[in-house]
């Protein structure tokens, strides 16, 4: 393919587990610096779509492109490993359950991959860790183990860990869903800061207010298809589809 591709481009993404089709022919493109939110009920396929972007959940059909390179190439095992690790170094991911490495301190969590994959010296790595942890407000806890941190603090370290690889794109998979309500804001605050720096982000979330305030575009997914998409000002206030309206209404009731 030689045609001009967008920064992130998903073409005809299809994914099934056995007979269950979770993604049905989804196409999506994201420009550099854009922030895209994906909303939808559980089982709508929104996490699967996000996890297809770095091939964590490989698609069964369709293509994912990042910055002109196809992510999900069919290669021999050895070549695929090399290729995908190269790609994944450029894509940061933040998980619902943090997935910090429990046997490493915050510093070690942040520096392990850069040291290993980019050959940073200990001094360079330490500087990087201080920089990234400072950015998420966790510098004071740099030598704490994950078990000594609250959920919100863990998630901030996890974000710093992803940022330390200097990714071109950040994926957030329900980053605040597992947090106690009072801890959500500290993580949202960090994500807002990233938005101000024009980091390209794709955010799967169930927090409508947050999506409305930071996203340039919001997608509503249901049963494996993108039902509706648009700027949050339109999608949240004036949805055209009944399914979207239904979802937003239920969600609003739940929030009250």
């Amino acid at each position, binding site marked *: 393919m030689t045609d001009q591709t967008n920064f992130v481009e998903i073409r005809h993404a299809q994914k099934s587990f056995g007979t269950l089709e979770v993604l049905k022919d989804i196409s999506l493109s994201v420009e550099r610096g854009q922030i895209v939110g994906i909303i939808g009920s559980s089982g709508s396929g929104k996490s699967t779509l996000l996890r297809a972007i*770095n091939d*964590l959940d490989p698609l069964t059909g369709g293509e994912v492109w990042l910055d002109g390179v196809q992510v999900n190439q069919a290669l021999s*095992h050895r070549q695929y*490993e090399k290729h995908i*690790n*190269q*790609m*994944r*170094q450029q*894509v*940061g*991911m933040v*998980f619902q*359950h*943090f*997935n*910090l*490495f*429990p*046997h490493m301190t915050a510093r070690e969590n942040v520096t*392990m*991959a850069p040291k*290993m*994959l980019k050959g940073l010296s200990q001094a360079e790595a330490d500087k990087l860790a201080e920089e990234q942890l400072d950015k998420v407000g966790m510098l004071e806890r740099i030598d704490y*183990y994950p*078990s000594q941190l609250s959920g919100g603090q863990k998630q901030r370290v*996890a974000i710093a*860990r*992803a940022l330390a*690889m200097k990714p071109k794109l950040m994926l957030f998979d329900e980053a605040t869903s597992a947090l106690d309500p009072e801890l959500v804001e500290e993580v949202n605050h960090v994500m807002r800061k990233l938005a101000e720096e024009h980091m390209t982000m794709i955010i799967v979330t169930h927090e409508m207010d947050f999506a409305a305030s930071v996203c340039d575009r919001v997608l509503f997914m249901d049963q494996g298809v993108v039902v509706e998409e648009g700027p949050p000002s339109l999608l949240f206030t004036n949805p055209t589809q009944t399914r979207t309206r239904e979802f937003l209404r239920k969600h609003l009731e739940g929030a009250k």
Partner: protein
Amino acid sequence: MLKVYPFFLEAAWLTVLLSILTALLGLTCGALGAAARLSRFALLRFLGAAYVSVIRGTPALIQLFILYFGGPQIGIQLDAFEAGVIGLGVNAGAYMTETIRGAIISIDKGQREASRTLGLSQWQMMYKVVLPQSARLMVRPLGVNINALIKATALLAAISVVELTYTAQRYIGSTYKPFEMFLLAGVLYMIIIYVTGRGIAWLDRKVQIT
């Protein structure tokens, strides 16, 4: 009674030596077995599973006999000590394979995903993230395997290795004092097992995350 002590002490030392060598070979076989069972190659997975199933599905005593008495027929000539260490080591390895494999697969899937999304290769992930965590989970169950293996060295009495049980059996026969001989050998086994258990517990505390 006094006359038998030196023989029992010597035999106890041989039991210790046998246990150490068997444990080392067992751990090696266990690590290889676990690697095979977790391999992405179906043939290796099958071989690993067959090793575990056959060794765990047949008596260690028979395995020793095949090796020691049957070995010469297929050109493997081992003395009783060598056959004992190899036979018991390979046997313990099958149990340790399952212990090690269990500890590896029990690491949360999220740990693998997080490693892979950072761009780590399979090996880097294993070495930096999975193994350091599963090593902590392994110490205790491997301790149980080692405890069983120490007691299994008694089987070598059946191929005339002069370890503790053989010595006890010999003096039960000649002194007709089975309870005394049993107690003497028993106490020595208990000491070996107690010391090993303390060692394992110490190691277990040492590797835990603060």
